[in-house]
């Protein structure tokens, strides 16, 4: 009896000792995360100069994502000598930095070694540390890789800063428009032209390995699909078909091309095997079926078709079976593009006299418009499926004449729309996969 009584008391005391306050927190802030990024130091004056430029590129990358805010360096209390300097966390907490990224550049002739560390200022723990070695000319690429590392560690999603954009650079008047193939870094730097502008080119797309670009050209008069070898700059006509071919895209494994082909007045979707040089018809319908786009697992294809009267988005298996309509809204839908992370399909919607860019789940649910304009088209996904790029044409008069055509990026939440500065007018952007 005594024992039972004692054990009951002990049990009661144990329960009392483990009593804790329980709090439920529902909802949160969605402000850009404040990060401290002291200028990277260098062992030589050239290294210090590169460190300064790299810090600027990393700052621009992170801030352009809309998810980070780099705290002004004037507010910093502690001076970080190099990547080995131990942070005084209280100094960084005082300026309300959630993260601290600092590093240094070590130059040895033409070789650069960049070391950096990322700290969780409040948990007072190291989140990441990397050391990268490259040639002095590749400092910009290295800065993008470091920005990606910070982005990945802080958000938990893969980065997209070390990536490229292939697009159409436009010059000249509306009647004599010159369209050239061009490539640049995702932030608009390093623009390179891949064609001379003699032939009008449209809708370029990267291959998954980035060594090829497929596009449409009017070289022979009719629109035809070509593939360019990026290293040699040589282009090759895809197949030798009688009809027009257009809207090409590579399969996720890069071995096939999906595109539209118009034969005897009917447009259907075909799969072209790049190794066997054979084609397979996927749709067989009197309506216009076009703008095919692979799902990231390569098992399905999204496309648009006017088989129901107006252009709507459909999804089918890669062999053409099980065609399902997934869009049912007002107006017409075009250019569906499957997200690389597989959760959304981006599209263009034309309704109420305006163009819109929207996203929907792959079963058609959760339809959401995120941008609009007089002419706004060609959405393309960043390699992490978080950001979209598109082009917007703003006419200079009410008849829709002239005006400028520019590239923009936007977060899939519909926030943070930003202009991508290009030297000339630009359209038809297509994002590359991550380069590193």
């Amino acid at each position: 009896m005594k024992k039972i009584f004692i054990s009951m008391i002990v049990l009661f005391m144990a329960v009392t000792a483990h009593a804790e306050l329980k709090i439920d927190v529902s909802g949160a802030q969605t402000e850009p995360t404040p990060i401290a990024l002291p200028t990277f130091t260098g062992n030589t004056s050239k290294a210090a100069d590169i460190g300064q430029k790299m810090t600027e590129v990393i700052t621009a990358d992170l801030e352009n994502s809309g998810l980070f805010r780099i705290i002004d360096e004037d507010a910093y209390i502690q001076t970080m000598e190099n990547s080995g300097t131990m942070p005084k966390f209280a100094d960084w907490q005082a300026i309300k930095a959630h993260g601290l990224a600092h590093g240094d550049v070590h130059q040895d002739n033409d070789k650069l070694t960049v070391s950096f560390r990322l700290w969780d200022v409040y948990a007072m723990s190291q989140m990441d540390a990397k050391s990268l070695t490259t040639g002095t000319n590749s400092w910009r690429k290295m800065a993008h890789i470091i920005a990606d590392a910070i982005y990945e560690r802080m958000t938990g999603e893969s980065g997209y800063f070390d990536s490229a954009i292939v697009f159409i650079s436009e010059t000249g008047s509306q009647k004599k428009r010159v369209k050239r193939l061009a490539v640049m870094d995702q932030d608009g730097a390093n623009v390179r032209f891949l064609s001379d502008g003699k032939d009008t080119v449209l809708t370029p797309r990267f291959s998954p390995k980035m060594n090829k670009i497929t596009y449409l050209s009017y070289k022979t008069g009719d629109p035809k699909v070509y593939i360019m070898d990026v290293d040699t700059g040589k282009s090759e006509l895809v197949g030798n078909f009688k009809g027009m071919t257009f809207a090409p895209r590579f399969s996720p494994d890069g071995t096939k091309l999906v595109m539209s082909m118009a034969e005897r007045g009917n447009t259907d979707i075909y799969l072209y095997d790049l190794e066997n040089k054979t084609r397979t018809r996927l749709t067989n319908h009197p309506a216009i079926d076009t703008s095919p786009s692979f799902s990231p697992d390569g098992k399905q294809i999204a496309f648009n078709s006017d088989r129901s009267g107006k252009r709507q988005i459909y999804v089918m298996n890669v062999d053409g079976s099980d065609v399902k309509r997934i869009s049912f809204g007002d107006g017409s839908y075009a250019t569906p593009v499957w997200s690389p992370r597989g959760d959304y399909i981006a599209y263009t919607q034309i309704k109420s006299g305006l163009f819109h860019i929207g996203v929907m789940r792959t079963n058609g649910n959760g339809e959401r418009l995120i941008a609009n304009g007089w002419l706004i088209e060609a959405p393309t996904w960043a390699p992490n499926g978080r950001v979209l790029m598109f082009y917007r044409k703003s006419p200079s008069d009410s008849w829709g004449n002239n005006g400028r055509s520019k590239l923009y990026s936007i977060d899939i939440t519909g926030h943070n729309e930003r202009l991508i500065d290009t030297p000339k007018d630009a359209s038809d952007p297509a994002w590359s996969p991550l380069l590193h």
Partner: protein
Amino acid sequence: MQIRAYIFSAVLHTVIIVFLLWDFSFSMKDYEKSNVPVIMIDLKKVQIGELTNLPPNVKKQTHQKQKKEAKVEPKKEPQKQKTTVKKTTPKAETKPEPAKPKEQPKPKESVKAVEPPKKQEKPVKKEEKQTPKADPKPTPKTEPVKEQPKKKKSDGLKSLLASVEDIKKNARPSTKVQDTQETGQEVQDGIEGGTEGSLMQPLTISEKDLIANKLRGCWNVDAGLNGIENMIVEVRAYVNKDGSIRDVKILNMRSDPAFRSVAESARRAIYICENIEDSPFKLLAEKRGDSYQGWKEIFVRFNPLDGGVY
């Protein structure tokens, strides 16, 4: 031996019978009383404290006050309250403006001639776990230098406290100013006097709400993160008696990097809230110092989307 047992049994039976009679006699009296005509009690006059779990001594005091108050004619308070609600209703809805595109700085790189995009030298990537050259031990946590003005945050808390105070005022009959003050004193007694020395006295709902609101303000998440709707983070904060945080443990960590990022942001929220002016933990230390055992460990469940993101 057997006789003793019989005697014991007889005594016990007698006691039981006496008790039964005693009890029945009361029941009969109660039954008779229940036939007395029913007296109607106006429930509006019954005062309900907005703070829960008031200790018995406070409840007794409130009861006594009510008896005194019964003599005073009550005014039509409900109508007054309705008017107040109307006044506080916002007149116009503000629509969120779409984000304006910001111009990026022009690229410093000059436009080069036709060049393949993959000409850049691929850097050799080495991931290493360097240990800092300087003192590897983290600097002991000290109070942050208060250089930045924190007026905004404190205003938020003040307005929150003010709104809680308003609710208290509105919920209470304002017929007698003196009475309101006295009731306030009772509530104060409930927190500071009545709970003194009681280890298990739980926090009131409004106190918990205050802490949750402060933590929500300290928690920053990325609303566009893939799968965030399923990311509920549970952490346990170990709090010192002075309201400083000794440690924070993530209880349901997953290997998924996106979840890890959200979980780390939740842990950070505890530390951020520790350092803000009017920290909820400091508030606990000040107001609930005597029931430290009740909040030395705080279990916090962070749900990013349940209450909406701001």
